[in-house]
């Protein structure tokens, strides 16, 4: 079990792809984790050994070496592959439900629970109505009845 915990997820970045400058390589890794490989559904390019992921990693490093900012590198990829390439989708007209849907449901459910709780409390604190004459008579009859043995 301990050994299993020590296993790190496989990284597809090959030593030959890495940049000599550790700072630049660190930025490339950061970007590589946020970019989705376009042929493997839900894998970052750093985790994929697909041909196109390799090409994208190389392009990221080329852009960084050329002096691009992280933002510019991301824009470079989005210009070619669209928002699909971003593992974290941007907040815009088409995605507001995706971003706000969770909190919205939480708010609605929380509101409903609060209302229900308040309602229950008003019922619980209200004094019980007194027994009617009929009910009193029935209680008296029940108390008078001798307990029946088995």
């Amino acid at each position, binding site marked *: 079990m301990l050994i299993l915990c020590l296993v790190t997820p496989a990284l597809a970045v090959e030593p030959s792809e890495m940049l000599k400058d550790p700072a630049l390589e660190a930025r490339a890794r950061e970007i590589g984790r946020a970019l989705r490989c376009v042929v493997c559904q839900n894998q970052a390019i750093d985790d994929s050994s697909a041909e196109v992921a*390799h*090409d994208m990693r190389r392009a990221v490093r080329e852009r960084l070496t050329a002096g691009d900012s992280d933002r510019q590198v991301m824009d470079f990829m989005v210009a070619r592959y669209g928002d699909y390439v971003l593992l974290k989708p941007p907040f815009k007209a088409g995605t507001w439900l995706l971003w706000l849907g969770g909190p919205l449901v939480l708010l609605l459910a929380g509101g409903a629970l609060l209302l229900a709780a308040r309602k229950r409390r008003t019922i619980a604190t209200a004094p019980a109505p007194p027994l009617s004459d009929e009910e009193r008579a029935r209680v008296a009859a029940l108390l008078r009845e001798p307990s029946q043995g088995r």
Partner: protein
Amino acid sequence: MNRTLFLLPLMMLVILAGFFGWSLLSGRDPASIGSVMVGRAAPRLSAPSLREGEPALTEALLRTGKPVLVNFFASWCAPCLAEHPLFTRLKEREGATIIGIAWKDKPEATRAWLARLGDPFAKAGYDTDGKLALDWGLSGVPETYLIDGNGIVRLHFRGPITERDLSVILPLLRGGS
């Protein structure tokens, strides 16, 4: 109030069933990554020619005033083999201008493949390291782009083109720009 709450599961069932039904029938493909190229000016084109002695492929090929098809393929790619006869037909029957770019393939292997199957390409180049393909937003082979007479990308097919795709390709090819 409490009565209507009992209808909630039923309502959720109806909503879910509606969504699943729509997903099945609308032909929506959640795995499709789409293309941002459509509607934009064609990306840069520069590739060495596959044919010895011919000049390299340049952007000028996409700005001739006539629509062109650009097809990325490879000799190792089976779906490319499947779509190949369609390109031959488009060239022979429609007189389509088709530019072929071999992706991650050895030029000798591509040449042998084309010699064996026939060469439907007006111009053919190669992109061994995939750098050109990245500028085209390529995800793999085969992929095909239709560029109109004004140099604007009008169609982008990811995967092999089929008989059914001809119904969208042909009007754009014949209609010019």
